[in-house]
């Protein structure tokens, strides 16, 4: 099966800040889609987060974007700027897709 190389961006970000990241993605005409997954918790420079019945202030999500190398670079830079000192990480890796027009 013939496949095509794309890049996969994964952004771990606070749920309350996710809308801003999604806005950024939705404004970029070359980003054709994204997928958001819930996290159960995490640890990083801002401490440990575990499921917290009392408040959703610490909830995080993963946002997955599959796109071309060039767009991925651009989005990665923009997201990192948006996050600035906020919580969050951005990961970049290789991926192959079968329907190149889709991404």
């Amino acid at each position, binding site marked *: 099966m013939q496949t095509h190389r794309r890049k996969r961006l994964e952004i771990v970000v606070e749920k*309350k800040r996710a809308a801003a990241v999604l806005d950024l993605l939705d404004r970029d005409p070359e980003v054709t889609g994204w997928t958001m997954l819930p996290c159960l918790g995490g640890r990083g420079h*801002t401490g440990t987060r575990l*499921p917290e*019945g*009392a*408040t959703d*202030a610490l909830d995080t999500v993963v946002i997955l974007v599959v796109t071309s190398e060039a767009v991925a670079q651009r989005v990665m830079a923009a997201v990192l700027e948006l996050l600035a000192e*906020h*919580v969050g990480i951005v990961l970049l890796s290789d991926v192959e897709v079968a329907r190149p027009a889709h991404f």
Partner: protein
Amino acid sequence: MDAALANLLSPPVLCFLLGLLAGVVRSDLEIPEAVARALALYLIFSIGFKGGVELAGTSDPRALLPPLLVAAGLSLLLPLPAFGLLRLLTRASRIDAAAIAAHYGSVSIVTYVAATSFLQARGIRFEGFMAALVAVMETPAILTGLLLARSGKSGAMDARRRRELLHEILANGSVVLLLGSFAIGLLTGAEGMRRLEPVVASGFQGVLCFFLLDMGLLVARRFTGFRTMGAGLLLFGLLMPIVGAATGLLAGRLVGLSLGGTALLATLSASASYIAVPAAMRLALPRADPSLSLSLALGVTFPFNLLLGIPLYLAAAGWLFG
């Protein structure tokens, strides 16, 4: 003493202790997060709605204004002694101290709910508009916290961040729900209560029990957090509620609240937020350590108020009312 014991032996507090125990022995007992959050919304809706209905039944709703202003003032000002105490007792950074201070100016809705349940069990009445005071006390403290954090730095927030923060404060879910359900109670009055009574009134104690069970589990998990906390912070978490309660007692007496209302205002002042403020702080002071303030508010001050504070503040109010 008697009241303190009765408090400890009430079903809601026993459920909290059960959760605490389960957490401490690392039981896998777990209330699904989605359900715990729905129960919190239920509690907020119930106290708002019941407050509104009660206010609708009183003759003079204008009596509401002075207490409202006083409550907002308490929320604005209480972060100051909190910040001072923190700088005195602990080595928390300016930013961390400011963030914690904001939590203590604001209020814990569940502590309030537990206090109303305690008063009701003893047949002590309070003003219907108390629920509105809870709403106005939630967010002013955030502003003071920010000013305290910035006081050291020259740089101000940029415009976008300031807009975001204002929005977070005004449109915070718990504030909107509390004020909204209060308004619905006010508008629909006794007829509304007749329709919702089986849910908002009869179910209240049971839901509170389940919610406090979950709070116990959460608090126990926080315990590990404050093993690393240092005695100064612990001390602050026990001292600050006393300072807040004392201020609240005097303010309640001065503005003419009833015995029950005064005890509730003291409880509110003594309590620390873990819903509205943490959310705002993540946005305003992202570099403040969120687990520090949550561990204090949830792990030290909340159990102190629930187990000892509430009967204490009522006793003090009783003494004040002679």
